[in-house]
């Protein structure tokens, strides 16, 4: 099992040097977020992740969660780690001061989430899942609801869930059937079965606050008839403490490919007492207010997978001896050379590195936009919201797809040992696989990007972004050392718009063309975005080198990784472009019954 070391140098590089976070927080008016303060927070967080969470990652996978009629027991050490987490005040970091939070910007929390996620994704989901419930109540709850639930969620004393999926409905929430019948006292009786509820039941806290999607009597069909309800596991008594058991139970937990340390629950609501939150039948709209931030949260799983598997693979590749370098022995005293001398091993490591560091820049950038969405006003807020809305499906789908690829490289670098549980690499693959499925599958994200975000705005969302890339390319026009990046980037940036126009035109004739192009389009977009951020990192690194630095190796490695990305990964865009150009007829022609031939 590889030791986890928080990549603090790289985090600082992205935050401070590439994204200029000091100016960002000053503009944002977040006085507390001074560089020293942030450094201290991140340093402390890193320690907690390295020393407390990482050591229970593998044991958590092996032990898994245990279900009994009394509830779910989490793996050894999980509960204690959570208590420490609450004691350290971590859950409240990004919450508003008026609800007991520390009022720090979301972007700092994203850095913490990365470290938690890399150290132990399963564990991180318990506090992570509270986010949705917390945001819903913060955004749409009544003052009483906020007083009762939000304070406890902010402190971390209680955790929360989002109960959306039902056995018959996952991607298509319009067909959900859970019912909410009004009680005389203004509350509702919620009845129905929810599945795939992460952290739906566990032993780490005294109470769990479920936010449940259900239908009121006579509600319109489809997605326009869904309302949100708060349903606590225990009904708070007059003092606000957990009182009577509510009619909600965990029927079973799933046996899964990975994230064994996190309980994926079937939740049965049997006339459970709940309270409406937000307007009737507007449940889905209410959820969209925080969906973007939640999806950044999931995209981090891709980054975490890339970072964790890269750390493991790199250590192994330097240590493991096999064969000689084709350009002559590099370790003449040993029986063989360390495998990092072999080009193909380097190809895999560099791919992991390019994905880990590139998606970090992308995600942190998006997190800064999230800060403006939460704390900005007027135009600034709207612009940030537009960019974030555009980037969200790309982050969620592309970062997890790329992270999953990186995790598989990690296994491959280890050879046969990669397949063996004790080395930890296969766990990363198993844990990460879910990221391509939950919070909207890759396919759903791709439809969101191409359909809702781009075609429905007549391309405006894309233009916001390509304009920014264009400006960046212009700024670097005369810069010889940036030429290797700027030329392909500006070509792709232009092609991106052209491809979109073409899809838009064909989709007018045949609506299937959107879905047929969508995933290739999303991946194409992801690669171009990553190219933009790699160019920005290369630009910063080259500036540092030009200014003179004692960290020449670090910055040179950045430039070289950027070159690798441009030379060896970015060409994938050509294939996606051509597949899109070839249209959807070859996938739509076949009769559904004929697939089984």
């Amino acid at each position, binding site marked *: 099992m590889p030791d986890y070391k928080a990549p603090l140098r790289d985090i600082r590089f992205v935050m401070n040097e590439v994204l200029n976070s000091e100016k960002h927080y000053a503009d944002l008016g977040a006085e507390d977020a001074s560089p020293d303060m942030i450094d201290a927070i991140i340093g402390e967080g890193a320690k907690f992740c390295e020393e407390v969470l990482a050591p229970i990652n593998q044991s958590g996978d092996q032990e898994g969660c245990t279900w009994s009629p009394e509830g779910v027991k989490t793996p050894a050490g999980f509960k204690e780690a959570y208590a420490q987490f609450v004691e350290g005040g971590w859950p409240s970091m990004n919450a508003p001061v008026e609800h007991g939070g520390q009022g720090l910007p979301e972007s700092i929390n994203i850095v913490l989430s990365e470290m938690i996620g890399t150290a132990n994704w399963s564990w991180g989901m318990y506090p992570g899942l509270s986010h949705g419930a917390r945001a819903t109540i913060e955004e749409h709850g009544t003052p009483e609801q906020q007083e009762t639930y939000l304070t406890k969620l902010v402190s971390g004393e209680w955790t929360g869930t989002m109960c959306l999926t039902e056995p018959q409905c996952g991607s298509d929430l319009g067909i959900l059937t859970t019912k909410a019948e009004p009680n005389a006292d203004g509350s509702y009786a919620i009845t129905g079965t929810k599945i795939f509820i992460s952290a739906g039941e566990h032993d780490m806290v005294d109470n769990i606050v479920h936010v449940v999607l259900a239908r009121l009597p006579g509600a319109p069909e489809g997605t326009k008839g869904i309302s949100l309800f708060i349903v606590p596991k225990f009904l708070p008594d007059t003092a606000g403490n957990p009182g009577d058991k509510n009619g909600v139970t965990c029927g079973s937990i799933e046996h899964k490919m990975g994230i064994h340390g996190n309980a994926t629950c079937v939740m049965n609501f049997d006339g459970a007492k709940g309270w409406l939150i937000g307007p009737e039948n507007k449940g889905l709209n209410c959820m969209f207010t925080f969906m973007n931030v939640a999806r950044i949260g999931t995209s981090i799983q891709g980054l975490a997978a890339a970072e964790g598997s890269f750390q493991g693979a790199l250590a192994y590749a330097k240590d493991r001896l096999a064969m000689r370098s084709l350009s002559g022995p590099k370790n003449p005293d040993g029986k063989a050379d360390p495998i*990092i001398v072999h080009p193909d091993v380097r*190809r895999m490591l560099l791919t992991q590195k390019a994905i880990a560091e590139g998606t970090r820049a992308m995600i942190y950038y998006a997190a800064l936009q999230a800060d403006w969405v939460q704390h900005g006003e007027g135009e600034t807020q709207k612009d940030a919201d537009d960019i974030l809305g555009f980037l969200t499906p790309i982050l969620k789908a592309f970062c997890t797809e790329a992270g999953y690829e990186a995790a598989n490289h990690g*296994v*491959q670098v280890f050879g046969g040992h990669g397949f063996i549980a004790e080395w930890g690499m296969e766990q990363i693959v198993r844990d990460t696989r879910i990221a391509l*499925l939950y919070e909207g599958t890759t396919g759903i994200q791709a439809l969101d990007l191409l359909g809702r975000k781009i075609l429905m705005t007549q391309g405006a969302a894309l233009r916001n972004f390509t304009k920014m890339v264009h400006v960046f390319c212009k700024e670097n026009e005369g810069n010889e050392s940036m030429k290797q990046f700027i030329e392909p980037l500006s070509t792709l940036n232009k092609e991106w718009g052209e491809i979109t126009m073409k899809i838009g035109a064909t989709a007018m004739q045949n609506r299937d063309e959107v879905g047929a192009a969508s995933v290739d389009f999303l991946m194409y977009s992801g690669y171009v975005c990553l190219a933009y951020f790699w160019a920005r990192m290369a630009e910063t690194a080259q500036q540092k080198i030009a200014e003179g630095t004692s960290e020449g190796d670090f910055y040179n490695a950045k430039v070289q990784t950027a070159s690798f990305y441009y030379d060896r990964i970015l060409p994938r865009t050509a*294939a996606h472009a051509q597949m899109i150009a070839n249209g959807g007829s070859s996938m739509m022609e076949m009769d*559904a019954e004929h697939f089984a*031939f």
Partner: protein
Amino acid sequence: MAEYKAPLKDIRFIMNEVFEAEKLWASLAGTKDSVDMETADAILEEAGKITASLIAPLSREGDEEGCHFEDGKVTVPAGYRDAFKTFSEGGWAGLTGNPEYDGMGMPKMLGAQYEEMLYSADISFGLYVCLTSGAALAIDAHASEELKTKYLPKMYSGEWNGAMDLTEPHSGTDLGMIRAKAIPNGDGSFNVTGTKIFITGGDNDLSDNIIHLVLAKLPDAPSGSRGISLFLVPRNKVDENDVVGENNKVTVGSIEHKMGIKASGTCVMNFDGAQGWLVGEENKGLQAMFTMMNYERLSVGIQGFAAAERSYQNAVAYAQDRIQGRSPTGVAAPEKAADPIIVHPDVRRMLMTMKAYTEGSRAFSTYVARFLDISKFSDDPEQKQHAEAMVALMTPIAKAYMTDRALDTCIAGQQVFGGHGYIREWGQEQLVRDTRITQIYEGTNGVQAMDLMGRKVVANGGKLFELFASEVATFIEAESDNQAIVHLLKPLAASVERLSDTTEYVIKAAQSDPSAIGAAAVEYLDLFGLVAYAYMWARMAKVAAPQADADEFYDVKVKTANFFFARILPKSVSLVESIKAGADEMMSLTAEQF
């Protein structure tokens, strides 16, 4: 999990119609009197039945239960023992074995189809059988008459199992570093001592004995890979009457806890002065293994797409059944709350991709098996030599490309299931876990790529590659007036052109930069695989097109070919671009700078 159904229709299409097995077998010296179509067909039919009914039902539970290691012994999951006994009684382990020792002597082209069905049913189970066949193959090719007579019949009958013991803790890819020793006893036998790891089927309770083929070094053997010999070491001693006796100082240290193939015991084996016999010549152990390696590598490739076939069958059933959302072009199932997800273009993209890869793999594995048969059964030296060259060229592609695409396919099959794809009971995630190992063992896919790029392409200046290129060119030329597939021939020709051009580029680059081979290898193999599959799909389309109006099966073939060319082959453009970016970016970082 949907019930497994052996894809016999497609198997027959590929074997009989595309590759004309009957004609081939009738023409080869070694098969013309021993193989007839009726027998072959009956074997396929029976293989389809027994794998679907006897083995496939074990797979899910076998994964949950896994193998056990207690008191120094490995036991297989419930049901495996009985199934193995029934299966062995059918003589399946000896299907392609040497008839002189009670094998059935069937050609590999048929064996490949049977292996596919076996692995689709359960890779773990299939490994026990195929490891035995593989060990038997090496024994048959290199061991003394005495060893063959003693061991082969029992292995073919499944009474004894086989295992291959190569890897040691510090030496996997680099076998030159192995430490296991073999000391001559003076009576023609040797004392073998050492530790081997990752030994699939190294111990189990399926049969009475395990016959290990162990790589070890003789005293004073040259260092490196030229000093390795191969030994036959039975787990239990066998007396002159073939009675299995006491343990031969071959013990199990532990079994591994793995990502997948959990019903297959992966053992640490300790040899502590175990009695063994030399197989083949002294210090030529690796060469002896190479005979078998081509078969084994094809077999691992087949494992991959066999699992992918299973995943595809499940995904199609699920996509036709699961209702979610409405078709973008209008409601397709108005009587239901939503449309089956097979109406959605992206779900179709995944299914079509799975189908195109899996059937392409089936064609390709049959194509390679065909060359194996020619090289084994032909008496025409020129034909034989050509087939051997094609086997050499295609084997790394068969192993690596088929397994890489198999993992992609199984992942897609999981994706079609949405969240359920992540849940064990549905079976899709198991197929991903089981398939993952196929990219690693029998030489990682990186090692395969080096074999292809270095030994098979660059080392001979592209001579072997020309054999393939000219075969495809001949096909294109012959079909140039065939209106039914002419739209495929142009992109096929372009892709071969791209591959030729890239081949030349790497050969040239390798002259001045030793890193050029390793830097290009994986993407080159990918590119070669794509072009080879394009060729396979063009050949399938050629056979199917004239019958497309009469039979939907053939119509679907043509449509899938079209999909492959429109939505998969374009990857070749990117691969060429990546390869031509060269090695510099890969080699420039120091190890510390990573």
